[in-house]
């Protein structure tokens, strides 16, 4: 993975990980590799089993990488109050997430911060199923 100016790897543990998924979260994402990245939304997929959105992230040289970011499922997000239009192409966002283990440009998004400071899809207090 190429380092980018807007991509900061945080070496510390401690970010919460969602438990409510249809697959083993830790087998796909590495809780030891939390990430913060800023970019512009290019596409939103309000689909199952996970809603997804894609952002363009530019590095110091202006080279742009498109990232695939996973959210919870639309039914879970809707129950938290979000809609399929909460995030829209063109939005400038900062994403707190967890990187995929396989080195692809994929991460799980734990929360998204809009330029005005609003956090959307934040799931830190998501219910944990036994």
């Amino acid at each position, binding site marked *: 993975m190429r380092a980018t100016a807007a991509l900061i790897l945080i070496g510390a543990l401690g970010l919460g990980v969602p438990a409510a998924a249809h697959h083993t979260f830790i087998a796909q994402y590495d809780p030891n590799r939390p990430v913060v990245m800023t970019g512009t939304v290019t596409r939103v997929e309000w689909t199952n089993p*996970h809603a997804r959105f894609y952002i363009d992230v530019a590095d110091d040289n202006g080279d742009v990488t498109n990232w695939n970011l996973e959210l919870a499922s639309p039914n879970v997000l809707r129950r938290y109050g979000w809609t399929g239009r909460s995030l829209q192409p063109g939005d400038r966002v900062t994403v707190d997430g967890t990187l995929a283990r396989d080195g692809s440009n994929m991460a799980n998004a734990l929360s998204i911060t809009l330029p005005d400071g609003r956090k*959307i899809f934040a799931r830190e207090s998501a219910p944990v199923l036994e």
Partner: protein
Amino acid sequence: MNIHQTVYTLLAALAVLAYGTSFSQPTGVAEAGSDRGGGNLSDPLIVPEVPDAPAPRLPDGTPDLSGLWLGGGPNRDISQGLLPGEEIELLPEAAALMASRRPQDDPEAHCLPTGVPRVAPYPWRIVQDPPYGKATHLFFLFEGNIHSYRQIFMDGRGHPEYVDPTWYGHSIGHWEGATLVVDTVGFNDRFWFDFHGHPHTEQLRTIERYTRTNLGTLENVITIIDPGAYAKPFTVKYTATLRLGWDLMEYICNENNQDVSHIVGPGYRDIETAAPPSQ
């Protein structure tokens, strides 16, 4: 334009004004009325509190299990629900099968059904038919892991002599006091009991005992009987909680399932059963 048209036009104009106003308001965490939505879990509209009330009963006195429930079965590791004194003793072949299972092979990750007694992290609803009086059928309607249902025959029939193996098997139910007892056979061997990959064979028989202990609580005590995979039966207990004000929602799992090819790491079983690092 007649008077009705004038009124409608004025109402429409007011509606547009109100809609536009909601967008021009200062942004907050929860923008009620905006198509962007918003909210958090402290919002009682999202997770309503369940009143402290006794379990309801139908007019004829039959316990009423209806409602939208979350949980009530294993998800991560079925051994988490073992009752005191119970243990899981895998036969060697089943132990080898479990050890060979990788997270990317979990049928649930492939948008296949959970089987029994596993639950998905999504709500499910109990519906009886007919709605009042003695039920002939109970239906468990699942939002996920796939949109599906279980059908429990309450009309006194037994199991057929032969049942083609299926994901949910053949279920017959009866009441023992306030407890619904569901006896199921005829399972296929394809689903896993949990993320850990606890296996079973087509010899599996499950006895589920559902008791609604109060308005918001549904206990499920499950005995797993499978002489093809386990040296002896074992019993686990899980508890479902009522979600008032929620409805089932659409969940079409396999419309955009990109996960499987990216599930490359160790699963919960590898991590939770790994030896601690030496000092």
